[in-house]
């Protein structure tokens, strides 16, 4: 099936590649460098052009900056964003700039996107380097990366699968929505927490204690979510953020019931068919944890999936498993859901006693010991929850980030969209600048944390404000504020005192 020219043009607007600069160093073997390329149907000469340019700039910039190679190439029409995912394994995202289409990007947001793709990949598949070492032809890595990244970028395909099967090419590259300036009050890779009362907190604590000791004194971990907000975690911040992202993408009730994710970058395409030609002949089965519609809730409240294979290989084989980044330990993943409450339990694979039996013992334990608590906690949280606008603060559009704990809170997206385009652009630009200063401060080895306060009155009279202090960041856009700087500062002060425990207050 031929591609129309229009489709080609669109698909060239965004390119995403993963390459290993250690591979393909002989002339004629350059293609071997490529581990992933989107759009996959881009001619190889063009793919190699992107990779050649990237490698050239990486080598060039190392002359002056050996410790940090190329991060961004900014050209008139495109931005090239680099992320060195693992040593010599690079992810490069090329985005076309187009003011009419509002394709105005914040580099930092695009970098976070690349980082998230890689973190999630690590969680499910382990490092790319390790995969390459295990299987030097790279076919396994390629098929894993292909299905994984395409699933990540892919939105609601589950209902289309029948259609996709027959005319996938037609749908490739229809549209890919990357985070643009309109997402300036969001922070990818962070967790959004539910604020809970003291009473509920005690119940949650009790529940966590029960759950985490499901197999005696082994180090189990748990994560509890209410809707798409985190209630509690016993994981490290990194692992929490990764698992939280995954849960919000594929596990929470809203996603399960609608089958469509509110979050996502839409590419319609058939991953499976492509995987077949890419790595189909390889003996290894490709696990696709980000595939849509693959989780469903069983009668006992546990979520089931066939992503990790079915009964054919027994229970253990089909239990979802992930890698923890901090301990590099492989964990079995159990997900239990009761109404709005999602409980994720991680048990070390090594401590599951004996196969099928061990699995059901864990499940049984949860059902017997925690069910009541789960119901109780869910009830309390539901009662206390203020709905999706719970964290709206009248007059403010804000984003609050705690970098150390990887937590953020922001105005509800529906409220942010009421801001004028100029305000959003000004905020996006301000964040771009602050991103740069933060990264510079980080590179200064003195370890001093950046302290910064910027208040700008934009052309459209909106105030865009940024405060950085002790690893915490606050961004506020005020559109209907009085015209004096002192008034705007006052608004920030009030916000800080009321919602941030005075973290950003000056006195």
């Amino acid at each position, binding site marked *: 099936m031929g591609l129309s020219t229009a489709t080609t043009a669109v698909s060239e607007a965004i390119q995403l590649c993963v390459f290993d600069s250690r591979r393909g160093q002989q002339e004629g073997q350059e293609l071997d460098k490529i581990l992933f390329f989107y759009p996959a149907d881009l001619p190889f000469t063009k793919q190699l052009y992107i990779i050649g340019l990237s490698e050239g700039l990486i080598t060039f910039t190392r002359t002056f900056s050996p410790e940090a190679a190329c991060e961004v*190439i900014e050209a008139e029409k495109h931005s090239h964003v680099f992320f060195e995912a693992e040593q010599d394994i690079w992810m490069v995202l090329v985005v076309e700039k187009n003011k009419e289409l509002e394709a105005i990007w914040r580099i930092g947001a695009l970098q976070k996107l690349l980082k998230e793709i890689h973190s999630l990949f690590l969680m499910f598949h382990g490092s790319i380097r390790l995969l390459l070492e295990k299987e030097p032809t790279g076919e396994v890595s390629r098929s894993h990366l292909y299905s994984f990244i395409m699933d990540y970028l892919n939105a609601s395909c589950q209902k289309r699968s029948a259609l996709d099967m027959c005319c996938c090419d037609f749908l490739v590259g229809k549209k890919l929505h990357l985070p643009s300036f309109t997402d300036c009050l969001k922070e990818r890779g962070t967790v959004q927490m539910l604020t809970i009362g003291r009473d509920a907190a005690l119940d949650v604590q009790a529940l966590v204690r029960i759950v985490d000791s499901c197999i005696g004194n082994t180090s189990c971990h748990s994560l509890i979510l209410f809707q798409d907000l985190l209630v509690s975690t016993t994981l490290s911040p990194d692992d929490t953020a990764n698992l939280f992202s995954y849960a919000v993408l594929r596990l929470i009730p809203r996603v399960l019931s609608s089958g469509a994710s509110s979050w996502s970058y839409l590419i319609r395409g058939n991953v499976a068919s492509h995987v077949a030609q890419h790595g189909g002949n390889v003996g290894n089965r490709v696990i696709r944890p980000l595939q849509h519609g693959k989780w469903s809730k069983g009668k006992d409240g546990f979520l089931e999936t066939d992503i990790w294979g079915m009964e054919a290989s027994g229970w253990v084989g089909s239990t979802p498993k992930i890698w923890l980044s901090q301990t590099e330990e492989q964990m079995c993943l159990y997900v239990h859901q009761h109404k709005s409450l999602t409980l994720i339990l991680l048990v070390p694979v090594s401590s599951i006693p004996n196969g099928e039996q061990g699995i059901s013992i864990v499940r049984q334990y949860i059902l017997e010991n925690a069910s009541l608590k789960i119901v109780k906690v869910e009830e309390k949280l539901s009662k206390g929850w203020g709905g999706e606008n719970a964290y709206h603060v009248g007059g403010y559009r804000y984003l609050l980030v705690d970098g150390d704990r990887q937590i953020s809170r922001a105005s509800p997206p529906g409220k942010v969209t009421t801001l004028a385009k100029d305000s959003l652009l000004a905020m996006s630009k301000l964040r771009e600048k602050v991103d740069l200063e933060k990264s510079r401060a980080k590179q200064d080895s003195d370890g001093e944390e950046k302290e*910064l306060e910027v208040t700008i009155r934009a052309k459209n009279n909106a105030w865009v404000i940024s405060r950085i202090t002790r690893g915490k960041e606050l961004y506020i856009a005020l559109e209907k504020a009085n015209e004096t700087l002192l008034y705007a500062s006052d608004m920030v002060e009030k916000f800080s005192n009321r919602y941030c425990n005075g973290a950003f207050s000056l006195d």
Partner: protein
Amino acid sequence: MSCGLSSLSSSDELDDFNPRTSPSTPPKPLEEELASLALTLPHPQLLSDQDDVNGVSDGFEADRSMFGIQQSDEEMRVGLVFEEHVGGNSVSVVEGATEGSDGAGVVWGRTNSEIEVDRPASPSSSGYAGERGSSSASSGRSEMDGVAEDEIQELRDDASDGENSNSVPSWVPGKRHGDEDDASISWRKRKKHFFILSHSGKPIYSRYGDEHKLAGFSASLQAIISFVEDGGDRVKWVRAGKHQVVFLVKGPIYLVCISCTEEPYESLRGQLELIYGQMILILTKSVNRCFERNPKFDMTSLLGGTDVVFSSLIHSFGWNPATFLHAYTCLPLAYGTRQAAGAILQDVADSGILFAILMCKHKVISIVGAQKASLHPDDMLLLANFVMSTESFRTSESFSPICLPRYNPMAFLYAYVHYFDVNTYLMLLTTNSDSFYHLKECRIRIETVLLKSNVLSEVQRSMLDGGMHVGDVPVDSLPRYRTTSHLGQQRAPSEFPERFKESNAGMGGPGGLWHFIYRSIYLDQYVSSEFSSPITSRQQQKRLYRAYQNIYASMHDKEIGPHKTQFRRDENYVLLCWVTQDFELYAAFDPLADKALAIKICNRVCQWIKDVENEVFLLGASPFSW
């Protein structure tokens, strides 16, 4: 050694990556160098009116003798030019001669009607020409000129910045660190590199290191630019950690800055624009024709001896706000004094002078332009830099071809330059290459009037008194009209200038005010306060300028700007910035300054400037609007 891209391209993994890269430039024979060099030298015999020329040259015997070496090139130069001029289509056999005739193209190859104007100046006493002569004499390398005072200063600063942590700073005459190349660790660690190269990848200028040794590196830069162009795009900048590589393509001329100074892209790009402008000021844009004829044209010789001009310009990026404000500043003078200076300039301007400019260092005393002629602040900056950095202008009156890139990038004007004292100089610009004597007469008239009306002594006094001091910001709200003292100061600073400077130390101004810059939008002028404690060292001043540059760039964002107000507090300063239709104010305070008080002080500063605007600005400079 070549590094980076060129080494990558020379390996076989990406054959097509760098098709146009040449691994290195072979050393050129000295004759060739001299031939092309000589062609660019203005010379009497190129002019039609020999008598006039000789007359003028005779007036500069001392200068001519300084550049004795030029004379020995004369035959070759004249011969080649003649060939180009008369023979027209004749093709030279020798490679050097081909390049030479390209050089001549700068002089003769115009198709427009400005032939008269385009010719190089008659006397060979023009500053830069002289410099070229001496450099060709010394070694065939082009970086042997005397080092400017401020360059040395910066060398120290750079060293203390950690720019050169691996080697002891050495006092190299002319270009600094000329022995380095891209293989040197010290070279790679320099904080801010500037390169000019041709579109074929030939190095034209490098701030550090020997251009010839940097041929491979230069080819890498060219490869990046052309590789992105091959993809149908244009590279603007590349970021790697703290480093930023900024590219600017101007026809066949490529300019690149590699910096880890944390200056924003917009500033660095603006600096590259100025460097390009400086090049145009020396050569005019018709240098492009050389590349049209011979893409591999080697331009280094054309700029021989002008290293000092570029290094002085680059140095000014660290201290002169005019480089990013695109405005000029005036020497504070009583209104009447400036009026007197303006009147006599106006007088002579009516007699066929395009611009008459009286300056003291980089500050303007007065400017007058012919009707409808306007001088862009960037052109003034480049012209002043050219004159101040070229030593030979100081030693005698000079007549030199220069081009004002914003005025007309294609044509030469002729600048008569004369220093009245060590800092104060007069520039008379004309389109007429024969008017040396006329301009000399004008200068004498001007000098007489300036002396009679005490302008020159007032200038000296103002130099001693300095500009606005933050310590003098009026703290009471009473307006200070009609103060008789200098800029409303409460004291007689000229009597004890040193003592007062000391007494100001450690204080700054009220409310923690450390420094300010005020730019009048209509006048295209700015005034900045004198540095006071605690911004005393060169390094602190440079850092403050960079902070100003940053906030200026963020206020004037092309897509969303200009913003109206910005308040910024970091570990170094509180910066307050206010942009209105009439003016822009940038003020730096102690980082612990109180916000409300800082705002109040800013208002006071604006009021103060309004009160003394007669003294700090050149007002009503008649034909000066655009």
